[in-house]
């Protein structure tokens, strides 16, 4: 990480020669991201380049992902991203949502229900959250069933009829993300507006903190899908159908 002042260090690009422990030290939110690459122990003094070499991880892809999550102003070179690696990473992110974030939110809501039993606010919030999670799971399943397999189908010269059906699904994906993100940010605002007097602030803080992380993850996740995956797939479709015509 090229360093000048504290502030520029915070926003500096992450590079191959940076020590992973220092990168995480400056932005702890990147820890769950590196876990998704199978990097989870003995960070020691190793640089990102050394870790990737040892663990056979694609360094360019790791840097592109870390920088995208680290800085909202950074955007990787779309054409250089390996789509198979990207879909693997997106699936691992889905797993993180399903196995970590959603259960955490559920247990925080249960804790809140114990502290404020039978209040309309909590019952309504819980219902909203449950409905949201159901829609999110449905969205995740749609992507994993219909969108991500397209990468393999296009690479393996899938059947033209299958690909045509799939291109319609790709178009359906557009616009879905903005709803998913907006609903979380609305929930945060509504909770902030309705925290009851004399309530246990810590539990509300924990819920808001978790929701805020979740929202940020969703936005970054959607950037990968809307700005890289979908345009690249559409481009591959166009090339495929043009070449088939000849």
């Amino acid at each position, binding site marked *: 990480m090229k360093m000048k002042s504290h502030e520029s260090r915070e926003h500096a690009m992450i590079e191959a020669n940076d020590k992973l422990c220092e990168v995480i030290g400056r932005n702890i939110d990147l820890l769950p991201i590196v876990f998704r690459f199978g990097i989870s122990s003995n960070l020691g003094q190793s640089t990102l380049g050394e870790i990737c070499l040892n663990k056979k991880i694609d360094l360019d892809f790791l840097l592109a992902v870390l920088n995208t999550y680290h800085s909202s102003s950074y955007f990787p070179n779309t054409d250089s991203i390996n789509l198979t690696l990207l879909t693997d990473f997106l699936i691992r992110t889905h797993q993180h949502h399903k196995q970590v974030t959603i259960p955490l939110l559920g247990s925080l809501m249960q804790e809140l229900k114990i502290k404020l039993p039978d209040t*309309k*606010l909590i019952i*309504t*919030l819980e219902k*909203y959250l449950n*409905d*949201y999670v159901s829609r999110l799971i449905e969205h995740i399943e749609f992507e994993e069933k219909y969108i991500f397999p397209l990468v393999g189908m296009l690479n393996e010269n899938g059947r033209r009829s299958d690909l045509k059906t799939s291109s319609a699904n790709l178009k359906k994906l557009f616009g879905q993300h903005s*709803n998913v993100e*907006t*609903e979380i*940010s*609305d*929930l945060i*605002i*509504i909770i902030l*507006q*309705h925290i009851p007097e004399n309530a246990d602030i810590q539990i509300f803080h924990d819920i808001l903190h978790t929701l805020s992380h979740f929202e940020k993850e969703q936005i970054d996740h959607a950037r990968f899908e809307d700005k890289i995956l979908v345009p690249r797939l559409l481009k591959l479709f166009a090339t495929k159908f043009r070449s088939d015509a000849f």
Partner: protein
Amino acid sequence: MAVYSSCPDNNTIHEWNDLVLLIDTGEYEFISKHYKSFRRRNIVIVGIHFDKLPTPDYTPFDEILYHSDTQGVLFNKLKAFSNFGKHRQPSLQLSDRETEVLRLVAAGFSNKQISEKLFISIHTVISHRKHITSKLGVKSISGLTLYAVINDLID
């Protein structure tokens, strides 16, 4: 500023927020009926008194302009309202009409259905929805529904 010599209709008054209402003091009942709603929406109520009858000690008017007022008195009374609204934040409370629109949005009605139910244009519905979103900070339909349920606007 809105100027009326007789009662405006209900559709008109639902559009009001942050304004000075000039109205005949004879419309005392109309003002009393909507008094709370006007207060909630930052409406300054100024009565225009045309006859020479004395006005009661208590009136719902913030100021009364008398036929007998001299030019200087009238000038000073009106001057007090000349900066109204310029240095203040717009009301963050939903107006009665916005609340009604929110209730219908939360109940699942489309803009077209809402416009038909309230006898207003779709553009007006969209404008109300923009104000609702801006005042509440909530954008999605499910978020607006959550807000409406928590605040007892719908069951």
